[in-house]
Each structure stands twice: as C-alpha cells, then as structure tokens.
C-alpha cells in the first residue's frame, strides 16, 4: 500500500461496500458525540484522507494494548481504518527486524517530519536507562528524538498515559508517563488497561477527519470517550441506589446482578466508555460479567487500596494506627490526670488559713493604732 492511496481506494480494494463505510462513519460520529449531520463530512474527510504515517513506540508495556487493537475487532472496518494509516514502525507487527526496523523508523521520520503521528504504549523508566532499550537506544532517548518531529502524540494505555503498572508502588524502574517527559507537543491520553479498541480508532478517526486532536479532560483524555463515569452509565446503578449489594461473588445478590460496590468496584471514580461502547464487539463489559471495575483508565489504579476493597474503605491500614493513637491518648490522658492531681494536692498543702487579723495587718490604709 502506498502512502498516496486514499482511504476510499484502500477500502474499495479491500471489498468494503459504500454502505458499510457509511455505517462506520455514523458509528464514529455517534461515538465522538457529533450530530448526524456530520456523517457526510466525516465520510468525505476520511475518503480523501491521505494515509498519515504512524510511528508506534513500545516501551515498558505488555503488548496488551496492541493486542486489544489488532485482535478484538478484526477484521472489521475499524481494522481497515488502521490499515489505512501507514503504520511505519511497530516492532511487534512489522516484518522488519533489527537494523532494518530502526531504519524504517528513521526513514518514516525523515519523510514525514512534522506530520507523523506518534503512538506510544508503555511507560518510560527514568531510574536506569538500561531497564528498557530498543536497538541499544534507551526509551527516554528514543521518545525524545521521535517526539521532535511528531504532529501529535497519542499515548495508548495506562502505562503510557499515567505510568500504569510499572509505576505502581514501589516503582522500581522510576517509570513515568509520556506527558511527564514531552511538554511541547499535543498529547492525547488514551488510557485503559488496555483501552477500548474503538476508542483508539476513534481518536485516529478524529485526527483524520478534523486534522486536530479532540477536546481533552484534565487528565488529557478525549472528553468524548472519557466524559462519563462508569457508575453513571452502569446498568446496575438502580441497585446501588436501593442499597442492594452483592456481598460475595457467589451469594444471592451476585446471582441477582446487584451492585458490586462492596466487592471493590471502582466504577464511581472511573471515567471510560466501557459501559456504553463495551468490549468484544459490543458484547459486554467487566461489570456485566459480574466483576467490579478495576478503574484501569485512572492514574495509580494499582495503588487504590486493593481491587476488592470498597471504594469508601481506607486505602491504608487505619485500624492499627487508631489503636496506637488510642494507646498514646490514654498515656497522655493519664499524664495530664497525674498533673491535675498533683496540682490539686499542692493546692491543698499550700492552703493557708487566713484570719481577720491577717487581713487587717496587710491593709496599708489601717494603722497599728486603729487595729488595737
């Protein structure tokens, strides 16, 4: 496939009908929360879009994000959209290896300087450059070098967006996110462990259609996909309201599909499209399968106090702290009590009986003569 081939040509070549393509455009429009009137505009933009060069860098990651994208929805139109970009470097998917692979990256960078999209999955270790290298180049150096010529950066997965699992306490490699290092480029954070495939393709479709990155929330995530929290869109929400909770994974409540809050569901603090876009071609999402949300699209989701601990429970052990404070309070209280007792006893000992005579003698206005 050449760089000059448009998406329309690519789709036609791959046997995708006009109807199928428009269906995808309509889905994309609804996912991006755009009015239906935008569908023709999206179709027109996508049809004439030249395949932009994409360089995909994988750092400290598990390849789950790439798996999510390539496996779960293929072969569909979303998959073809991905074919329709020119994925010039992705060391899991590309055929080239060794020096040839690195040359592909350098060539793509040179040819498309200032125009290519940089996709990053995985976190970057700052502790020791040797923790993660590609072709002898440290992740940090490769990211800085490749980011320089990028039009925009898409950080895919929670590792690239927030540090993810490598950053989890005690963060042995000193892992950081892409936005911790790159400050001068537009960065879209597509978080999730892994992110929903349609969210990744949606961000790319937005870029192809409008040439800009979508509107982002305070954590740099596209609002269209991360604007709602799971709890608000959860079909089990009525049970939360009614106070009907599953207490274990196999009790009556769990069988009846009651709320999983007490089993540690992090839905209330997790912003993602799982409850609406769903997984495996719209089959279901974790809560629908009977497991609470882990909060994987949020920063520090590994350190939120435990996957099976209710959100309102302390993230740390407070009971022991409270016991120590109780002991210390009792000791201090007894100390103060002892001081008070001593004061009382001192007052009793120091008590002097005052007579009329004593009072008169000390009164300077009275003379000895008057007294007697």
């Amino acid at each position, binding site marked *: 496939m050449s760089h000059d081939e448009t998406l329309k040509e690519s789709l036609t070549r791959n046997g995708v009908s006009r109807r199928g393509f428009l269906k995808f455009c309509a889905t994309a429009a609804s996912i991006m929360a755009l009015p239906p009137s935008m569908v023709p505009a999206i179709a027109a933009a996508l049809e004439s879009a030249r395949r932009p060069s994409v360089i995909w860098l994988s750092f400290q990651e598990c390849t789950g994000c790439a798996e999510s994208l390539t496996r779960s929805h293929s072969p569909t139109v979303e998959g073809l959209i991905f074919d329709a970009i020119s994925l010039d470097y992705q060391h899991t998917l590309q055929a080239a290896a060794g020096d040839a692979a690195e040359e592909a990256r350098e060539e793509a960078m040179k040819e498309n300087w200032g125009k290519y999209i940089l996709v990053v999955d995985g976190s970057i270790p700052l502790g020791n450059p040797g923790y993660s290298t590609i072709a002898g180049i440290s992740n940090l150096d490769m990211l800085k070098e490749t980011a320089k010529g990028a039009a925009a950066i898409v950080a895919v997965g929670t590792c690239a967006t*927030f540090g993810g699992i490598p950053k989890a306490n005690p963060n042995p490699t000193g892992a950081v996110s892409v936005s911790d290092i790159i400050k001068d480029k537009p960065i879209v954070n597509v978080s999730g462990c892994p992110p929903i495939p349609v969210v990744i393709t949606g961000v790319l479709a937005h870029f192809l259609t409008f040439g800009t990155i979508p509107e982002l*929330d*305070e*954590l740099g995530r596209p609002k269209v996909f991360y604007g709602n*929290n799971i*709890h*608000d869109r959860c079909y089990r929400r009525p049970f*939360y*309201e*009614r*106070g009907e*909770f599953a207490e274990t994974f196999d009790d009556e409540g769990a069988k009846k599909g009651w709320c999983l*809050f*007490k089993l540690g569901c992090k839905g*209330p*603090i997790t912003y993602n499209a799982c409850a609406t876009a769903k997984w495996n071609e719209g089959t279901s999402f974790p809560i629908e399968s009977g497991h609470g949300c882990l909060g994987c699209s*949020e*920063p*520090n989701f590994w*350190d*939120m*106090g435990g996957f099976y*601990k*209710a*959100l*309102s*429970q*302390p*993230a*740390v052990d*407070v*009971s022991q*702290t*409270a016991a*120590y*404070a*109780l002991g*210390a*309070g*009792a000791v*201090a*209280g*007894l100390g*103060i*009590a002892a001081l*008070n*007792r001593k004061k009382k006893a001192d007052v009793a000992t120091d008590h002097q009986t005052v007579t009329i005579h004593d009072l008169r003698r000390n009164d300077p206005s009275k003379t000895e003569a008057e007294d007697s």
Partner: protein
Amino acid sequence: MNSADFLLWVRGTGLQIATVIFVFGVVLRLFEILTLGHKKNLAVTRGSGFKEGFRNILTRSLPRDKNTLRRSMFTIVTGYVLHIGLFVVIFLLAPHISLFEGIFGFGWPSISTPIVDLFAVLTMIALLAILYHRLTNPVLKFLSTKQDYFVWALTFVPLITGYLSYHHLFLNYNWMLGIHILSVELLMIFLPFTKLSHAFTLFIARWYSGSMMGEKGVKS
C-alpha cells in the same frame, strides 16, 4: 496533583493523620475529664445514683416539658432534625457503613440511598436555619464566638460536599469526593478540641448530673 493523586492521599495519608489526631484527642480529653474526680460526699446519700444517671440521659433527651417546648420550639425542632439527620447520614449510608466495616471489621445493614439523601437535605436545611437564627437573634448573636461559626462550617461542609458528590454536581466526581473526605478529616481533627467534643462528653455529663441528683434524692 491530579484528582486521582488527591483522592488517594485523602483515602490514605490524610486519613491516617486525621485518625491519629481524632483518636488521640478524644481519648486524651476523656481521660482528662474522667480522672478529675469530685469531692468526697460527706452526707448520707439517698441512693446510689447509678440508675438515676441513666434515667437522666433518657429524660433530658426527650422534650417533655411543655413550657420549654413552647418557648424554645425552634431550637428543639432544628436540633432534633440536625442530630437525627446526622445519625442517618453518617451511620446508615452504604458507603459509610463499608468504611466502618473496613476499620472495625463489622458492619450493619444500610438503608436506601434516596432516603439518606432526603435526610441530608433536611439536615442541611436545619443547619442553615440554625445559622440564620444565630445571626438574627440579638442575644444569641452576642453570645456567639468565632468557634461557634467555625464548628458550624466544619459540620456543614462535609454534608454539602457529600451531597454534591453523590449527585455529581459542579466538580468532577473524583475531586468532589476527595474534598468531601478531606472535609470530614478536618472535622475529625478539630472535633476533640472544640465544642463538637460534646459528641463524646454529652451523655457522660448527663449521667453525671443525673447521678448527683440521684444521690441527693432529687427526681431528674
């Protein structure tokens, strides 16, 4: 600091700090008060006073005197709404119970959230009425100190932030929830050292005065 870091801090370190100060403070104050003791009673007592103490806790908690009821209707009604409301909101909301369960190891049944929500609103209305009363009644205003307004705010902020976070209003839920937890932590920190310590001393004091009256043979 983003909302996730903030929320994690208030659920972790912040809660540790607040718990230490709260527990230490309450225990300290109770020891301090309970060890004060009182003068030896040289008179012949007319009863042990033990039972009368509990009787007093009950009778002083009920608005039985018609005259007082008539004169202080406002204070009594708002006071009851506020305290019953606080009890329901703090101890019967499912997420709160699960918090206590996490700390003490046991929980109790919750009631449905919209009912707790209603109590939260009633409690806030009562608190606002109490504040208005304090600001407009000349005697009460004269008697009010800065601490009175401070403890009012300490009580009101957790309620309003809890309400806003439950309804997902104004701020992003994570921020609002974090602020709600932080406001409760501030309440915990100041409770032992302000008038709010009456939560722990009130019934002790009522028992004490009841037992004194019992010893003297006075009906409480």
